[in-house]
């Protein structure tokens, strides 16, 4: 029997070494390659995922520490039934908040955590929320715009 947790709402049971990085478990064992590895030392935020709602660097979390936890990755943002993009993803698309794409999954997850926290979406607060995510292409302006735009999007009727 391995480590049991859920990824994007689906139960997983992974018989892997406990010190395997959550990043490697996601990418190599579960084939969820949306989560990227940038620096591998907690500097760049490319591997950001949510563990029990909190944004973390998946390169710094061993699998043994997510036993029983709810893990969310970029693959879980879109509607699982229809594939429709979440308002945050849609806002990144519309604002041009992505260029090469390596930082984008991490930016989306840091943005998701920020929106879930429900704080005021001021520029300063958004900048702080994505301070642990490095982008080497765009210069952040459009990413910040996208997160602000998503914060202003009213939740869709009928969605939980």
């Amino acid at each position, binding site marked *: 029997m391995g480590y049991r947790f859920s990824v994007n709402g689906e139960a997983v049971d992974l018989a892997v*070494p*406990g*010190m*395997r*990085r959550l990043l*490697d478990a996601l990418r*190599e064992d579960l084939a969820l390659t949306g989560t990227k590895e940038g620096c*591998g*030392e*907690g*500097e760049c*935020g490319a591997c*950001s995922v949510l563990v029990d709602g*909190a*944004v*973390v*660097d998946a*390169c*710094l*979390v*061993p699998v*043994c*520490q997510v036993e029983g936890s709810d893990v969310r990755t970029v693959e879980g943002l879109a509607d699982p039934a229809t594939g429709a993009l979440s308002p945050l993803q849609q806002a990144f698309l519309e604002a041009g908040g992505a260029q090469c794409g390596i930082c984008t999954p991490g930016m989306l997850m*840091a943005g998701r*955590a920020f929106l879930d926290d429900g704080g005021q979406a001021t520029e300063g607060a958004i900048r*702080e*929320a*994505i*301070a*642990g*995510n490095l982008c080497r292409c765009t210069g952040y302006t459009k990413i910040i715009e996208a997160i602000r735009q998503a914060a202003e999007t009213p939740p869709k009727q009928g969605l939980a």
Partner: protein
Amino acid sequence: MPIEPPVSTPRDLSEAYALLSDGAGWRPIAGGTDLMVQITGELSEPPEHVLDIWRLDQLRGISVGHDGATLTIGALTTYTEIRRSSAVREHLPALAEAAATIGAAQIQNRGTIGGNIVNASPAGDTLPVLLAADAAIVLGSARGERTIAAAGFWTGYRETARSADELVLGVEFPLQSGRTLRFRKVGTRRAQAISKVVMALAYRADGGVWRDVRVALGSVAATPVRARETEGVLEGAAARKSSADHAAATIVREITPIDDVRSTAAYRRAVTGRILHRMLREEGGW
């Protein structure tokens, strides 16, 4: 792929103590923000056996004692919990400030105060706050518990007074009314930066005179340190520009910074003098 050393997850403190005393050289892992970098083997030797204490929930939490004289923070309390804690913000705002300068959300959600203490980096951002606040570190083992003053905990470069069979359980801050504690970090950018210099200053401004002065620093010596000569210059001195000038000149000589990838010794000396002078000036109001 990084090295994946064997890991044990004890269910309670006594199980953790039993493993730590078996001589196998267990390395405790809390939130992993330092240790998980080491398992890449690129920066230092990876640990041989890892002891996962993340689930020991009795080591989490922030409480003020019944008499209101002590604030206790469990070792596994994260920087996010510290910066959001109303008790910390009320009684020890400098610690909330320090926690907010560490990494960014991803690090603050995992990194713990106990990890900062045991990792014993001279750049550990909360450590000068512990020194300036006269905090005490609580250690536990199968042999029992003991308390060590923060001032005696960091004994050498990345060395501590913790024995191999001990865990840091938490840290106790005495709450002294009328005492001010201030924090300042200088880094390359506001988030994700390891400090060039980090300072905590504590004092009581008693009728225009500095009392109970503590000046504590990170990234200017092999360990987090108190600048005791500088404290001596300020202790009992009038809160005027002349004493601030004298203290700033003293601290520049007293510290022993080095040139490294983040900064230079010369810059660290200059900026340390300036931030001390500025904090004193802001209090003195001249």
